[in-house]
């Protein structure tokens, strides 16, 4: 018997293993490796090995001594090509604006330079090397790990006297996090307000009508998000159908701005996410029998009391599941805000994409991704405690 059990287990693991390995290699490892980029500093430390070894001994105030200048000069001359110099400059520019041109100028200057390397040579190429601030950046970043990007994702930076907030013209990410959460909350509430009556009527209608309504809810659910967003562009644009109808009805004189702003984001995202609230809510409502509510009504409770005290508590798991699902999905939205929002309506996902494909700042992209993932995981964990994970199946 025991042998049969062991065999059974073995076969079970063998069946699960291919998926497990596949998901580990093509899903978990890439995400893990990427998230590590949020603190990874090896590119910088690896590009300036001599300087990094020396700079620990510098006091951080006076002009560094000759040997440190020598080390820096040697590191720069050892860079393989101008592309490597550009990468290094861009990396240091994340700490201090202007560093990029300093590195590029030094690199090209050293190529032309003849004679001994050192303080005199470097300062002659660019006098910014006589400013300790530029050296402090290197000293600060001499470790293999850096908090730079995680701090920057919260609009913070390391100053000479510890952590401080960055200047207002560069501040963005705290606002962005708040905005992302706010848009998600607003969309969730809109979905609840619209989804509750819909799910209720679906659950309380006869089987035939209810299955027709279900098909109509499933239709947008199965349709590509991109197609639905495109449809909203067509509807909401300045001379789109909505404005035309409103104008024809005499409700407005001039077309309203319904798209490429926050309103457009709310409308399109609510539409896209509504089925995710209706479906779980509907399945819970369908399971709620009429007995309790009828009993309460029979005992003379007014309808509003029956609704509040008897019906609502029974369907609460459905509300919680639906709302959380919508909220969590909304947090990571990218396509819809990109197509129907303006620059001030973009959410955190937009900046993850921006730092990946428009500015190639892996550190920032990974930090923001880490923050987003943390929000999502915490919510799911809380939710799994509350209602059980098997209710949260999407599509």
């Amino acid at each position, binding site marked *: 018997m025991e042998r049969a059990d062991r065999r059974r287990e073995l076969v*079970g693991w063998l069946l699960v293993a291919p*998926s*497990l390995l596949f*998901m580990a290699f093509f899903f978990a490892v890439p995400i893990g490796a990427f998230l590590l980029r949020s603190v990874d500093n090896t590119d910088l430390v690896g590009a300036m090995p001599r300087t990094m070894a020396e700079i620990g001994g510098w006091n951080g105030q006076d002009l560094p001594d000759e040997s440190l200048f020598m080390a820096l000069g040697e590191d720069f001359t050892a860079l393989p090509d101008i592309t490597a110099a550009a990468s290094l400059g861009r990396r240091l520019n994340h700490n201090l604006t202007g560093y990029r041109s300093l590195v590029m100028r030094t690199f090209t200057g050293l190529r032309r330079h003849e004679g001994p390397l050192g303080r005199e040579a470097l300062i002659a190429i660019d006098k910014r090397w006589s400013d300790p601030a530029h050296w402090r950046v290197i000293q600060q970043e001499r470790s293999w790990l850096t908090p730079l990007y995680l701090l920057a994702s919260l609009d913070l930076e390391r100053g000479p006297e510890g952590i401080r907030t960055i200047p207002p013209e560069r501040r963005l990410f705290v606002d962005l996090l708040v905005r992302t959460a706010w848009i998600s909350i607003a969309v969730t509430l809109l979905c609840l307000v619209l989804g509750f009556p819909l799910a209720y009527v679906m659950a309380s209608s006869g089987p035939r009508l209810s299955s027709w309504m279900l098909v109509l*809810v499933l239709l947008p659910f199965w*349709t590509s998000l991109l197609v639905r967003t495109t449809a909203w562009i067509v509807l909401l644009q300045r001379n789109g159908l909505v404005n035309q109808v409103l104008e024809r009805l005499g409700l407005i004189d001039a077309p309203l701005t319904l798209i490429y702003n926050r309103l457009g984001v709310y409308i399109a995202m609510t539409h896209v996410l509504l089925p995710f609230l209706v479906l779980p809510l509907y399945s819970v409502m369908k399971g709620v029998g009429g007995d309790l509510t009828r009993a309460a009504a029979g005992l003379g409770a007014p309808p509003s009391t029956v609704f509040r005290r008897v019906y609502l508590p029974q369907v609460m798991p459905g509300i919680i599941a639906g709302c959380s699902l919508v909220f969590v999905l909304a947090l990571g939205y990218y396509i819809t805000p990109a197509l129907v929002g303006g620059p001030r309506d973009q959410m955190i996902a937009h900046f993850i994409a921006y730092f990946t494909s428009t500015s190639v700042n892996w550190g920032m992209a990974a930090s923001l991704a880490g923050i987003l993932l943390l929000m999502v995981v915490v919510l799911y964990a809380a939710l799994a405690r509350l209602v059980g994970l098997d209710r949260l199946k999407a599509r």
Partner: protein
Amino acid sequence: MAGAPNQASLVERLVFRGTRIAALVILVVLVAPMIVIVPLSLTSGTLLIYPLPGLSGRWYEEFFTERLWVQATWNSVLIAVPTTVLATTLGTFAALGLNRLRSRLVPAVAVFLITPLIVPVIIYAVSAFYFYSRLGIVGTYPGLIFGHTALAIPFVVVTVNATLKNFDANLLRAALVLGATPRQAFARVTLPLILPGVLSGGLFAFITSFDELILTLFVASPEQRTLPRQLWSGVQETINPTIAAAAVVLMLVSVLVMLLAEWLRRQGRRIQGKQ
């Protein structure tokens, strides 16, 4: 409140009626945007606006003849079909395995296998881009197929698992008692019973890949432009009615897949109901 009560007051009846009307309006709003786009794909004009200046099939003609769109459609199929096969095979095995195991690790394994449903796709997309660029498979068909497969496996696992949950193990035991070999029992009993589940899992996998955009944006090269990718650049640039035609085609595929899935679900219920 649930189920129209007989002794309902006027207010109550009004609320009830009001809720029904509201639900109807919401349903219309839910479906209307997708209906609205259909006539626009048949416009004879060049702008996506009503009223239509006339009807014409020119945008469908463009969709089915213009090289970029044809190639994109072809690419979508070339990526979705292998993804479906791979994800359905892996996912079905995993679901069968999960059902068999008694280990305490099962819930953890199950959660791990469905994480792609939880992690925002943008995070996966940029990670895959970063990882693929180290492996040198950015802009390759296998890279996209593997990426889409990771996104599709959870759907297969969940669907097949749900079918297996309803599966009556007595049938299998009966077959074994009657002298069937395990292989025969699987082929004659298990497989027919879970087949609807496997096929709808496959449909999920297909549509996941066929509609996928975000991962494609990051890891596909111009050679692998898929239909959603092409539609995305269309929407951002030349908003001409070809994108309406493309949207209608994508929608038709979705509706077809949905009807098939729904039919399979009923079929599955019928087969299992017979037990």
